[in-house]
């Protein structure tokens, strides 16, 4: 039992933080927002220079051979800069194939995912979709970074399918999304030929685990950055002849953000550890982390706008990037209410 980063983990955290702080600038993110919502240069740097696209994949498949703790470290650092990167779907698909792919599927795809040659996203098919006789029909409504993915894992009921971007019958429609740093796309499946993953249950569970850890961690990173930037503003901005950070109401609001963030930090790494250690507690830790961190980020990002005053409400200031990302995290992979209900069912021992 040692709930602190190892030296290697601390180093990865430092490296990732420095990387995103330097490269995922507001200017570049805004350029990506105006285009397809993906900073492609950043993706290249992330996958080549940093070489961490496969952080949680085994070395056999070209990955770093690390786990969810390290995946969370990366997501936290990327979240702190609201990086316009397709990390979420990529992590979900990587882990899904690792957990549920056939040996051939793994050998074929995982090395390319680890190298960042393929960009992947995960799609939940809408009710009414079906996979019959090897053909997928229906749609997926809100696929994160769906317009810039080369490969999808599509969940249709209890089946997990591999769908390639250029598969005949697949139509990908980019959607104007509130969070322009992770825009959604709609996928329409017109009898698309799709290969099922060998062990769908394992694949979907692994995708969900990775997704929840990533979202919680990126929310943590976003919340921390919102606090840090707002503290900096509070020290510099003068009103009524005093730095606004000297007003107690302002101080207490920032303190409240820190109180939540400290808990969020515990939540993220608790959840990541339960996955890495194969602990039963994962069934509590994952929904807890997702629900808690999403709320923390939303609270912090809302405060970021509020405590910046008028400037925080402008397009020009970055506060809205945090705010919109926070909103999108709330609904991605299940709302807080849903996750809390799952926890209630577990502690009450019912299935209501």
């Amino acid at each position, binding site marked *: 039992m040692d709930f602190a980063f190892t030296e290697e983990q601390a180093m990865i955290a430092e490296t990732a933080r420095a990387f995103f702080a330097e490269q995922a600038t507001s200017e570049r993110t805004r350029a990506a927002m105006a285009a397809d919502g993906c900073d492609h240069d950043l993706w290249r740097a992330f996958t080549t220079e940093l070489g961490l696209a496969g952080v949680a994949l085994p070395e056999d498949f070209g990955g770093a051979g690390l786990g969810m703790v390290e995946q969370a470290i990366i997501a936290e650092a990327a979240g702190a800069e609201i990086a316009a990167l397709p990390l979420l779907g990529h992590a979900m698909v990587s882990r899904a194939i690792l957990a549920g792919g056939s040996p051939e599927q793994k050998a074929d795809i995982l090395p390319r995912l680890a190298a960042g040659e393929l960009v992947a996203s995960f799609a939940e098919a809408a009710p009414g979709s079906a996979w019959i006789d090897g053909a997928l029909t229906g749609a997926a409504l809100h696929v994160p970074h769906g317009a810039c993915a080369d490969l999808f894992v599509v969940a249709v009921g209890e089946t997990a399918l591999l769908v390639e971007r250029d598969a005949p019958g697949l139509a990908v429609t980019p959607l*104007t999304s*509130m969070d322009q740093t992770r825009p959604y796309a709609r996928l329409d499946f017109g009898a698309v030929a799709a290969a099922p993953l060998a062990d769908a249950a394992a694949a979907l569970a692994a995708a969900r685990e990775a997704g929840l850890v990533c979202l919680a961690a990126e929310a943590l990173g976003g919340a921390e950055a919102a606090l840090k930037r707002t503290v900096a503003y509070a020290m510099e901005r*003068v*009103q009524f*002849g005093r730095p606004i950070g000297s007003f107690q109401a302002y101080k207490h609001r920032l303190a409240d953000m820190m109180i939540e963030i400290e808990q969020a930090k515990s939540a993220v790494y608790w959840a990541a550890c339960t996955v890495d250690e194969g602990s039963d507690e994962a069934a509590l830790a994952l929904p807890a982390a997702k629900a808690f961190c999403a709320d923390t980020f939303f609270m912090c990002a809302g405060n970021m706008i509020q405590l910046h005053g008028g400037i925080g409400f*402008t397009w020009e200031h970055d506060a*809205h990037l945090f705010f919109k990302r926070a*909103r999108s995290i709330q609904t991605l992979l299940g*709302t807080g209410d849903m996750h809390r209900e799952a926890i209630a069912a577990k502690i009450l021992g019912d299935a209501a």
Partner: protein
Amino acid sequence: MKLGFTAAEEAFRAECADWLNGQMAGEFADIKGIATLTEKAERRKEWEQQLGAHGWSCIGWPKAWGGRGASLAEQVIFAEEYARAGVPGRVNHIGIELAGPTILAFGTEEQKARFLPDIAAGKTIFCQGFSEPGAGSDLASVRTKGRLDGDEWVVDGQKIWTSLAHISDWIFVVTRTEEGSKGPKGLTFLMMEIDQPGIEIRPIRQINGDAEFNETFFTEARCPADSLIGAVGDGWKIAMGLLSFERGVSTLGQQMAFRNELDAIIAAAKANGRAADPLIRQRLAKAEIGLRLMRYGALRMLSNSDHSKVDGAALTYKIQWASWRRTLGELAMDVLGQAGEVTDNAHYEWDMLPNLFLYSRADTIYGGTNQIQRNLIAERGLGLPREMRGDSK
């Protein structure tokens, strides 16, 4: 204490509703239901004029100045029917709610004659130049300078957050006219025409993608010497008086717009099944309660004839509605789910409810942040010690 309306008042309600519904079904059908302040601005200036032409623009004003001397109950009724009919907000709301009442209270007879009928007729659109860059909540730290140059005031400086400046004809500006003065002293309240070389308007894009607010630059901008309201140095007093008008009957119209927003959420919840979720039901009920209590708070405020006392309902009203609406925006999104996070519109323009979610983050900032409101409530309403100014020690 009585909540009901008389038969005559109910007849008046029918008259309002008839006329407004007729307009929204007829000549002005194209603006029905617009929820932002910026959309179709030119058509809505025509709507201001239509209201004026039919005597429905400023019904609480004296008849002599273009109003119809309506009673409080009638004003309440009109405001309710206005929003119920789906009529969009008044693009001249600054003129009719702030500039007009200020001129009525502090202006000369000549100024009243010059401005009030035109405001009521929808011919003069006003905006408000209070806030300055770097000042934010500290309204008294005005740096925009005004000086008399012969028979004209010459104004230099910059205002910010001037709502709708880009479609306005006039702006009222609080200027520092006494060299070296500080805080609320040495300020003068001027009315200036916008269409002149010395005034430049630059829009500020907001987080919802819209641009209702502006930066307004004054470079040797000019107005005649008699453009001031009150006396030289009275600017702070006039500005504070003006802000108190914000809490008039217009609040009831604003509430009816909120009613439309809440009704849209209720409709969405019923349509997509979220209405069955007990958590959503609690939040809808809280929103309903909050809205009702705003209504009865406003009626208490308006019915209160003893203006010598601090009116708690009035003092707490801003933070109440702003907080309520921000919460409403979050509820709207939770009802819509991910569907609320995407739009068919390629230009990042949003439907009523997602726009409500984004725009309402400004509600708790402009017109006095929630923090400033709490200071005011604690100090004026409860008599607690004032915050210290860092520079006045």
